[in-house]
């Protein structure tokens, strides 16, 4: 076999290899559609209060109030990618008084962005009343959470004389993200 023929064969094989290799039946443009949709379950606030934590409110009722900053609400992943949030509040009331819980999401300028009002029925030490309440903040409302930086909780005790007992709150949030 002449050298020329040999080299021609090599060239042919190379060309065959290069041109027969291809990427088929795939659509790389689908990369545009990749969305990460993690769902996070995270504790929120909790407390147990007794009558000593209440102060006289307007009229005959007593109120207890506290608030906390939630700086993570200002983070990029919340601002850009949070699409839904479910907040779950579980109250256990042993006061022999009905209560009203008012939960506000508040902006850095102290403007209330979203309010959740949860009536808690009267309970007793022997027979606590429990409330399991979930507030779903959907895609249309999510900016209210994005604009917030604080959460305040105000408890109104409608029977100020019912001083025995306590109110316990446990809470969590489900956060639904779409990272593109």
């Amino acid at each position, binding site marked *: *076999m002449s050298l020329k023929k040999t080299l021609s064969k090599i060239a042919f094989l*190379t060309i065959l290899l290069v041109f027969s290799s291809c990427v088929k039946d795939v*659509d790389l443009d689908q990369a545009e559609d990749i969305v990460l949709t993690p769902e996070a379950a995270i504790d929120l606030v909790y407390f147990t209060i007794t009558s000593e934590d209440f102060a006289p409110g307007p009229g005959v009722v007593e109120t207890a109030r506290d608030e906390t900053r939630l700086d993570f609400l200002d983070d990029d992943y919340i601002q850009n990618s949070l699409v839904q949030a479910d907040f779950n509040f579980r109250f256990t009331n042993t006061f022999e008084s009905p209560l009203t819980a008012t939960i506000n999401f508040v902006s850095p300028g102290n403007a209330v962005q979203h309010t959740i009002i949860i009536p808690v029925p009267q309970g007793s030490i022997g027979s606590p009343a429990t409330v399991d309440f979930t507030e779903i903040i959907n895609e249309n409302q999510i900016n209210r959470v994005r604009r917030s930086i604080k959460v305040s909780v105000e408890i109104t005790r409608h029977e100020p004389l019912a001083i025995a007992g306590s109110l316990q709150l446990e809470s969590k949030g489900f956060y639904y993200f779409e990272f593109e």
Partner: protein
Amino acid sequence: MMRIIFFLLILTLSMAATAQNKQLLYNFDDLPQTLLLNPGAETNFDMHFGVPFFSQIHLSAGSSGVNMFDIFKDDGGSINDRIKESLHKLSRNDFFTLNQQLEIFSIGWRDNKKRYYTAGVYQEMDAIVYFPKDPAVLAFEGNKDHIGKNFDFSDAAFTADVLNVFHIGFTNYYSKDLNYGFRGKIYSGVFNAHSVDNQGIFRTELSPEGPNLYRHYMSNVDVLIKTAGWADLQDSKDDISNRELMSNLVKKAFLGGNIGLGLDAGFTWYPSDQYRVTGSILDIGFMRQSKNVENYRYYGDYQTDGIELLFPGTREYWDEWEDDLDRNLKDETLTNSYTTWRPVKLNASIDYGFSENAEPCNCYRPMGRRRYFNHLGAQFFAIKRPRGLNYATTIYYDKTFNENLRGKITYTADSFSFSNIGLLVSTRLSNFNVYLAADNLLDYTNLAKAQNASIQIGFQLMFSRE
């Protein structure tokens, strides 16, 4: 941004072989590159001179778990569903590798005692990324549907190296039945990233006895990413021109960066004329990473139930919570030197020669025995990776058509597939040699379905004393 990172991850992952296995070049005594795989190999020429930058171009990538088709197939379905499916199919021991080598300079010659000396420089990039199963599930799905599950940070492990290798070696003709050889190497590091032996878990569990609904744990966390040759690039990327950047990289590549030492050793033994046994161990070596080191560590223990309101408290609950977190989970950037070990490789083979080549032999070469046109053999390859050895087994048929044309066909089974067919063709035009080797040929009709692929091509001058 997140989408781009994920796309690149998938692309790397879906392209990525026992990437450093060069089964086609091993035992191929017509090419000097066989000496890089076994410094004790017998060679069928007396001098070589590689065309600078072109004597060996090697590229290999592999994925042990998924391929590009698994993710990007055009079937009208959802790519996100396919990613989710792959996420659960892959295990923490699946990995993706990328290996590239470029011979910059290569020379060799035989002395009057039949010893063959070699010297050269090659550039190499080598990376292995284990699939970070738990962190990936956490990032893709979150913890909501995985209450009570431990997300284990030890799943994350990777190493990446870019370096130049300066080498000098010799093959000693001990007798007509035995050759052995050694090669000394100086590694000149351009870049290294190393993160293995990470530990720690993240867990969210229901907390019926606790003060809130869940309790979140970060336990025994110790995640360490070591880098060398990265910090100064990061610091200077906005301030220097491309030429200065190039000059910086070239300086590191030519012994101005981090340095290491290594050794290759190998032998060829003929128990009889027709049987040949070879073995080699490559890159027994280390690199001392002491320049431009930046190591990132995140460690500690923490658990939380959320924020307790005290009616009224300090109202600095968030700051107190963050301070507590920072006291318990710390991040540090360190600049302490570290040592990395090169991925040691092991080759072993046995083959059988038939169809005797009765042409006159060259007495400068160690061939005082019968030679054959055909060889049928089996080769074993192993490489040490952070989580143990990866193996490949090859059977091959090597045929010399004439003095100018020789070919080799291989079948390899490894971590990536059991259907890897490879082909090598090497030819000479006077003293000019060209070779081309590629494996996974069955997948060349659609590389998207390949678990791995590798290719080697090279040009060089080779001389024989007749």
